[in-house]
């Protein structure tokens, strides 16, 4: 982190947090102060560029599961599943019931491992070691030193999810096991037995983490719950036809902060009618918005908190009890972004219960796991719930099956407006107003601004793909705001 002093006493000042740490991907945050030291603007910049949407063009659509899984090492499964689902639609096939259940099992393991990583490895050092603790030790290694049992349990919970991915797909990351038409193999007896054997330990770990977190939430983290991105916005996520929690199929639902269902039963096929994609010159991350409200008023959030906000219930007993507790603490529609952490833990409970149901389902042992067909459609949209939120893949192909257009709407991008708003709210709360000229802002304050981003567990490596529509706009401004030089690309 660095604080850049003004070039001249009368000029505005920009505080730069670069890089933002303990997130996946590269980003920086800028806090813009006026000459008197008042905070006038904040920006969350995503500074890396990936370009998958462009270089996937002209490739066979059958490769998309393999290619897009490589977007990320944390949640390759999300892209794998979404690409496979989009491929199903291009083939126009109904996948076998066993394949559907096995894909679900894969996604549940993915949600578990990713949420465990976010909570134990990336975020819990802030809660458990303290916002003001030594930055050099405020990480998972510091957690190991301070509470080795909890750290070990958290690491093993992530391993539980990762191991299921390997048992199903042959490798922990970048498996190509899900394919258009289904999956490649059924669940083996050995895999089923291993999962059942390790489930009690995973349940014990999440019980421990939930107990600890709720204690913190009722005590020292009350202020964070209030000021870490607590603002009204829409929430979007998949739900089952009867309104329960869903993570791979179902229909899209938007819920307002007052609990009203704004839109329901939306199909991913029609995403362009209700989702717009804005761009800003200072970030490679798109700014999706809810079209009927326009940009930027159409701000909405996705991810674990959004999924819990939009659903009526989860559908399994333990997870539903935890969901009720979350709603008791944070409201029927929790609007604080800090509640994402709590939502992740509740979703892990939901995942463990669903995993147990699935591995005991004899259908997962059925050897018919793949439907085969040739290309039957030229356009398809796939959707799934990644750990960070709803993921869309939209492909157009020619009659030979070669991609002519690719659009990826990534969960993290959909939280972009909310992340910027969260950073602004935290900076307003914790950065002194005004900041006296020449003074350094304490690291602990800047860490809270970073932590606002960590609430969303953003995966920036996933989320920066658009090409040809990202303008590069440079402005050289004088102290009084006049444009001295300007260049556009």
């Amino acid at each position: 982190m660095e604080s850049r002093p003004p070039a001249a006493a009368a000029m505005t000042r920009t505080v730069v947090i670069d890089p933002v740490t303990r997130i996946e991907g590269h980003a920086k945050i800028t806090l813009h102060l006026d000459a008197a030291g008042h905070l006038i603007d904040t920006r969350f910049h995503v500074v890396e560029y990936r370009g998958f949407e462009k270089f996937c063009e002209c490739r066979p659509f059958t490769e998309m599961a393999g290619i897009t899984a490589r977007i990320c090492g944390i949640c390759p499964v999300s892209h794998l599943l979404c690409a496979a689902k989009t491929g199903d639609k291009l083939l126009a096939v109904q996948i076998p019931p066993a394949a559907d259940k096995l894909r679900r099992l894969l996604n549940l393991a993915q949600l578990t491992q990713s949420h465990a990583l976010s909570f134990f490895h990336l975020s819990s050092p802030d809660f458990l070691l303290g916002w003001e603790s030594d930055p050099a030790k405020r990480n998972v290694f510091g957690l190991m030193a301070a509470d080795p049992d909890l750290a070990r349990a958290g690491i093993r919970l992530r391993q539980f999810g990762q191991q299921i991915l390997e048992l199903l797909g042959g490798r922990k990351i970048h498996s190509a096991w899900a394919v258009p038409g289904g999956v490649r193999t059924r669940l083996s007896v050995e895999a089923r037995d291993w999962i059942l054997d390790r489930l009690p330990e995973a349940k014990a770990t999440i019980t421990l983490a939930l107990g600890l977190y709720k204690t913190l939430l009722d005590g020292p983290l009350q202020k964070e719950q209030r000021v870490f991105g607590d603002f009204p916005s829409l929430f979007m996520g998949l739900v089952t036809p009867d309104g329960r929690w869903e993570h791979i199929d179902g229909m899209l639902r938007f819920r307002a902060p007052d609990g009203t269902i704004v839109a329901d039963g939306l199909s991913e096929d029609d995403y362009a009618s209700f989702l717009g994609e804005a761009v800003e010159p200072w970030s490679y991350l798109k700014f999706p918005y809810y079209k009927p409200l326009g940009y930027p008023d159409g701000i909405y959030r996705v991810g674990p908190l959004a999924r819990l906000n939009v659903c009526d219930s989860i559908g399994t007993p333990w997870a539903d009890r935890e969901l009720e507790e979350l709603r008791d603490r944070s409201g029927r529609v929790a609007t604080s972004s800090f509640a994402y952490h709590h939502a992740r833990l509740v979703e892990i409970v939901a995942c463990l219960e669903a995993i147990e149901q699935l591995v005991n389902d004899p259908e997962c042992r059925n050897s018919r796991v793949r439907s085969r067909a040739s290309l039957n459609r030229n356009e398809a949209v796939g959707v799934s719930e990644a750990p960070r939120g709803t993921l869309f893949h939209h492909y157009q192909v020619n009659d030979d099956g070669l991609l002519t257009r690719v659009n990826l709407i990534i969960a993290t991008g959909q939280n972009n407006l909310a992340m910027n708003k969260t950073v602004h709210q935290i900076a307003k709360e914790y950065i002194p107003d005004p900041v006296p000229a020449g003074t350094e802002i304490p690291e602990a304050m800047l860490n809270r601004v970073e932590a606002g981003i960590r609430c969303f567990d953003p995966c920036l490596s996933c989320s920066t793909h658009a090409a040809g529509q990202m303008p590069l706009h440079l402005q050289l401004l004088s102290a009084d705001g006049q444009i001295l030089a300007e260049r556009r690309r």
Partner: protein
Amino acid sequence: MSVITLSVNGKEVAIPEGVSLLEATRAAGVDIPLLCHLDGLEPVGACRLCLVEVEGSNRLMPACTTAASEGMAIHTHTHQLLDYRRMAVELFFAEGNHICAFCVANGNCELQNVAVQVGMDHSRFPYQYPQRVVDASHPLFAIDHNRCILCTRCVRVCDEIEGAHVWDVGSRGSHCHIVAGLDQPWGEVEACTNCGKCVDVCPTGAIFHKEDTTAEKLRHSDRPALLKAARDEHVWRNQ
């Protein structure tokens, strides 16, 4: 049939007259990397991986196309040859667009295997990133020119075994590429019998079944030899 003797890396071997140096190295139990050669197809010496040193000659000889003769002394694994082989493999990678991560042949690719065999861990030559296309106009198969190493196995198997002669090599130099028919989209070439032999013999993921996804391509590179034995010698697989 008369027999000749020669030495391979100092080891004396006796082989039938008229066979290639490659057969001599096999008789000596020496393994040389190969990419263009395939038993059952006429050798062409295109990949240059099987180059060997022949005592008394000041140039390197491709083992697959050089006839063995009485009293020859050849060397297959000198420092110079090892270096040249690795260089040749690096050039294959630098010249095309070989992205193993999502290739249909990943884990079952002869180019990948050869890279491991020669100890290639990176390319010392700058990648060319050529602009190449995928021809998926055939209803069953596709050819991705990004992955083609111009071994011409497809050309030979289609001509020599199937007798359809769909494939040829078009253009020159770095523009050289495999063409179907008279440089038509593969799906428009009426001579194609849809037999899939070109898919079977392709050493990389260049020619593949359209429904194959990452790492799903299976190689059947032994089929030309089996078919040839069946036709010429009436030896069938189950005999």
